[in-house]
């Protein structure tokens, strides 16, 4: 081999020193006048290489870059003799960054429609190195002191800060232990462990809100009323839940009024005491109840005019 760069470490902490050595074979270096080994970081000349001829005739240069401040950089070993063109003999890819910061805000919710447990997290500052995030979990009981059965790792896709554990890997209504492992060449870090029953973190789909006409045959409609019906997504049909309705007139600086608790389904709900002939915005959300769960997102807004 004509020339070869070897590195103290191909990946270092950003700002740390890195030492490289370039060895050039006899047949590539027995030139007149005696050639000089030069170093470049990207296209910038790097002085300070110490060069010597080894007993076996090879030519060696060592250099230490005191602070590597590039997250990616190409280090090149050149040979110069006389007025000839600088000859590149080898290049090495340098990488610098940080060990993975401890991921935080790990939170999960059970999605009944997708039948999977979705966990997301905050990765923390960018370590500038390819970092793998793996959601580790195990089936357990009680406070997750013992690992009953491991659950296959859930490896997040590149640059994604969420991962889904499919239903077939979960035991519902029993606790599972979950934590996140972040790993790159410079180290590994673990998030705190969570311990929960996936069903206690169920997040329902938003309910479906529909406007109704005033009841046809009924008494003449009072002013300042409107009628609506709602139902929840069938994937959570089996769950007892409660809902709440918020509404506000479509006026500047209006505040939300809240009606809570409401049943998870109503074929005909009358809302009165509103400003007559005024447009109102209504939204609803539901939560598993009395058993624990996450509130669903608010439903898409329904716009409706109160009666005159």
């Amino acid at each position: 081999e004509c020339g070869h760069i070897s590195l103290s470490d191909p990946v270092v902490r950003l700002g740390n020193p890195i030492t490289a050595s370039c060895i050039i074979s006899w047949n590539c270096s027995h030139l007149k006048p005696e050639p000089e080994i030069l170093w470049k970081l990207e296209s910038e000349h790097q002085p300070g290489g110490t060069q010597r001829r080894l007993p076996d005739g090879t030519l060696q240069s060592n250099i230490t870059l005191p602070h590597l401040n590039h997250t990616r950089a190409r280090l090149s070993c050149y040979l110069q003799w006389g007025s000839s063109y600088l000859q590149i003999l080898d290049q090495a890819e340098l990488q610098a960054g940080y060990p993975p910061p401890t991921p935080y805000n790990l939170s999960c919710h059970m999605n009944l429609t997708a039948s999977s447990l979705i966990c997301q997290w905050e990765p923390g500052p960018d370590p500038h190195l390819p970092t793998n995030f793996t959601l580790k979990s195990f089936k357990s009981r009680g406070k997750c002191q013992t690992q009953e059965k491991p659950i296959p790792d859930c490896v997040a896709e590149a640059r994604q800060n969420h991962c889904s554990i499919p239903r077939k890997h979960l035991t519902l209504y029993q606790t599972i232990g979950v934590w996140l492992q972040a790993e790159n060449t410079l180290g590994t870090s673990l998030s705190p462990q969570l311990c929960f029953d996936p069903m206690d973190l169920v997040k329902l789909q938003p309910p479906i809100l529909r406007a109704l006409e005033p009841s046809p045959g009924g008494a003449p409609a009072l002013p300042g009323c409107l009628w609506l019906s709602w139902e929840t997504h069938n994937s959570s049909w089996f769950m007892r839940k409660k809902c709440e309705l918020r509404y506000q007139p479509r006026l500047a600086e209006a505040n939300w009024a809240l009606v809570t608790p409401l049943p998870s389904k109503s074929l005909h709900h009358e809302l009165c005491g509103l400003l007559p002939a005024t447009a109102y915005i209504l939204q609803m959300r539901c939560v598993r109840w009395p058993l624990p769960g996450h509130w669903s997102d608010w439903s898409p807004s329904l716009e409706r005019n109160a009666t005159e």
Partner: protein
Amino acid sequence: PLGAAGSLPQSFLLKCLEQVRKIQVDGALLQEKLCTTHKLCHPEELLLLGHSLGISQAPLGSCSSQDLEVTSCLSQLHSGLLLYQHLLQALAGISPEVSPTLDLLKLDIVDFAAYIWQQMEDLAMAPSRQPSRNPTPTFSSAFQRRAGGVLVASNLRSFLELAYRALRYLASP
């Protein structure tokens, strides 16, 4: 000393010219990719390495205008294309960004070599055996494959310029 120029069908020569231009485009793309992706832009910086790796130039002496001899020119063109085909094969694994361009260049060279050989056979101009394979350099690192790519593309460029002049001369009425 045109030799069997008259016997070369015009469509053969036109298709040869088209293939040379196609390979020139592929070769230029390869050089551009190696420069933008790996900052290896100057073959002059890699001559020493190229010499030590044994990257040779393909001879095209019989195609130079002074003493153009058709049969040996086609034969040299064919052998040269085989040399570049084997050199490019040795560069496999050059880098994910450059590989697609390298593969397309290789395919076009393989097809052009096969096209010339078939025509030489059809016109009974082909030597009895395909030319023996030159020893191909071994590239022992990603850097050497990229540097080798720059040198091969550069040599191929001058090889094709000479070939194009000869073919255009043969195709001229």
